């Protein structure tokens, strides 16, 4: 079994989410802040008339936020559409189930909650993100 993943980077990490959960990838755009919202909520964006929640993945994973322009990966989570803020978009990679390994015990709880496991690529590790957990 192989899976296609849309990959992107967060700081120096390479992450991926299944391609069939991704609606589109867009450059970041103006967001409306939501006061009192949880930390990782970056705000609301207008996506062709639809109001979409934007989640800052860096904050979600407990990394320092990036001030630069970020990219938006728009994903489906249940009936909702959510945009995830990431640093840079990478390629769509095809990975094999045999490359997969559950997250190591030493992983912090915060990360463990949103990471399904890792794919061992030849040159580096690819974190498989649990989209539903990351966006909610």
């Amino acid at each position, binding site marked *: 079994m192989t899976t296609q993943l849309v990959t992107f980077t967060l700081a120096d990490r390479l992450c991926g989410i299944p391609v069939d959960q991704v609606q589109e990838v867009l450059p970041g755009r103006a967001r*409306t802040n*939501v*006061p*009192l*919202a949880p930390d990782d909520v970056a705000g609301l*964006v*207008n996506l062709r008339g639809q109001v979409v929640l934007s989640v800052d993945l860096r904050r979600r994973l407990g990394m320092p936020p990036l001030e630069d322009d970020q990219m938006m990966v728009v994903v489906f989570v249940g009936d909702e559409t959510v945009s995830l803020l990431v640093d840079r978009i990478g390629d769509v990679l095809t990975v094999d189930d045999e490359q997969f390994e559950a997250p190591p015990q030493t992983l912090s709880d915060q990360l463990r909650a949103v990471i399904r496991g890792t794919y061992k690529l030849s040159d580096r590790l690819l974190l498989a993100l649990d989209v539903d957990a990351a966006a909610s």
Partner: protein
Amino acid sequence: MDEMDEIVHEFLVESYENLDQLDQDLVALESDPSSRSLLSSIFRTVHTIKGTSGFLGFGNLERVSHIGESLLSELRDGKRSMDQPTADVLLALVDTLREILAKIEAGGGDDVDVAPMVERIAAVQAGTAEAAAPAPEPAPAPEPVAEAAAEPEPVAEPEAEPAAEPEPVTTVETVAEPTQSAPEPAVEPTPEPAPTAQPAPSTPGPGGAAPAVPSAPEPVAEAAVETHARNAADGSIRVDVDLLDTLMRQVGELVLVRNQIDRIAGTREDQETKRSAQRLSLIASELQEGVMRTRMQPIEHVWSKMPRVVRDLSRSLGRDVRIEMTGGDTELDRSLLEAVKDPLTHLVRNAVDHGIEDPERRRAAGKSSQGVVTLRAYHSNGQVVVEISDDGAGIDPARVGRTAVDKGLRTAAEVAAMSEPELLDLLFMAGFSTAAKVTNVSGRGVGMDVVRTNIESIGGSVDVESRVGAGTTWRMRIPLTLAIMPALTVTCGGTVYAIPQVSLLELVALGDQQGRIEHVGSAPVFRLRGVLLPLISLAEVLGLEPGDDRVIAVVEADDQRFGVIVDRVLNMEEIVVKAIASRLKQIGMYAGATVLGDGKVALILDLQAIARRVLTADAAGLARAHVRDVAQGAGTTEQMLVVGAGDRRVAIPLAAVTRLERIRADRIEQVGAREVLQYRGALLPLVRLDQLLGAVGGMASDELDVVVYTRGGRSIAMAVTEIVDIVEDDAQRRSDIDDQGLLGSTVLKDRVTELLDVRSAVQAADPGFFDDLDAGGLGELSDPDDATADHGASLAGAR
């Protein structure tokens, strides 16, 4: 197969509608048993279901509708009158039919045990039809058909008075006896006699006992139903609701683009662009209105079930209740109608169960033994108001207060400080139920709090008014539609927010008058035309930096009026409401979001939720202050209102102050030895503090400040020379003095200030003020010292 499914689906939709109608018709028929048109309509409905179910192969459904039909035809033929057992069994039949339809809808076929229902109907039939078995309608009746058959035309001109003459039927009964074994098809006699009657009036009654043409009647009846249905359906079509929802969404998008283009056109010089933009704007508005109208349904759709609800319930409770409905053609958006259904049913049941009294008690109270529940719907201020009133016993606010105390929802002191509407509002608290006993009707844990939550979730509100002995009115206010609404856009901390217009009362620019924001405890207040308006700083609530220009948006939400301080007011515009992620809903500040003309997203404030979160904390603070007031200085500090009375300075515990007003002196009138003040349509007893305390320097001015004190629905006014300040009082620094109307003195802002004995001041204005309260068991205000005196007074009052 798909085609079949579609047919079944249509059958279900139609049958459900018909059954709703049936409920209504049956209840109506019960009160007007002679109505032929109702009976025909009922008969037709059941007949249609029977016919179609046979065609679709639902055997059980056919069986049960068939037996129901034969009972109905007895009614129609005048062999039986509409009595209660008949009505009961027919209503039960409707329920059974519904149950079967539900089963079919769920894909389970019509595999429901219908035997009990069939037996029940048969039993009712046997009950009056003498021993003579179910007498499956006298097929022979139509016999004359034989004659008609010879001359086919008459069939074409049918129906005029289908059953104008019952005689033939009664006679038929006797005839029927011998042909007892006559089989099913016999059921449709009536459509037939009509045609025969026309061409051959000379053949009334049991002309020939010829065996009827068995197959003929069925199609005739069917045809009649068909034409009828078509009449009703002419000029309208069924449209899938999803399609309407999609259309509505797209119109929403169009409105957004329209707003955007409006904004762009506004910045251009080009006249042509401007004209086009205007035109687009007009068309978009009309289209929006049109699409919204397609989704509107008269509230009758929901009401139609209520007569049945009231009938069943009042019967089971042994009460006689009539339901009256006005304004049933008031229209509401479909989705809202759906959301209103349950709260409405609950309130109607509640009115019958808790509102209307038993017939004996009603008679004892001098009322008609029949109670009336009234449903009223009308438009008001862009909202639909739905009222559910009963003429029952009403709700006693004092009892509500006691219950709240018993249940630990409020303390006795808090309750004592509440006005009547506030007490009634306690009914909406979770965990509240005044029902003396739990019946199987209400008191099942679904309380008014659920009603309120449901109504508020669709942006509406609900409140209650009641007069003891005269009845209770529950009032729901519901927005016309959820999708698009007018809203005020404001900025706060550099971000734009939308405030729904329905909540908005007025705008007050603060400008240089920042100083006019005063504080009661930690809570900021604003004197709006003399009335203290609690304020909420939006920036503070949302944790933002406030800007410079400041405006108060005066709003009313959750039955409370308060001011929201924002930085700037932008615009009034139609906004399209977009749902927000559930994560953001949980914050409890936002009702949704919208896209503005410039493409930015703005959050819509949920004022109800904000009011509840922010204001209750302050109310609790005030209530705490009041408890301290009651404890008479046992606490360390409390808020004091400092007023001038002549040359003296007097402090009044702030918790005892309901309102500060500035009034014109000519509104004070003399009644006997007392002065009263015309105030909000009532007369308020007035006491002048300077005279009470024997201070020097009267009040000669045209205007004077009064402090209004309210407890348990009664109020008095204390006139003062000036209102000085609100300060914290340290109880340690008080000293007791013995003087008329004073409790002692204290040092406030480095000036000696006397503490007003509120109780004696109130009694100076209205000696009977505390009697009712004490008698009502809310005597927490009384000092231990004069408890005996009070007791005596209340006894006197009781006598």
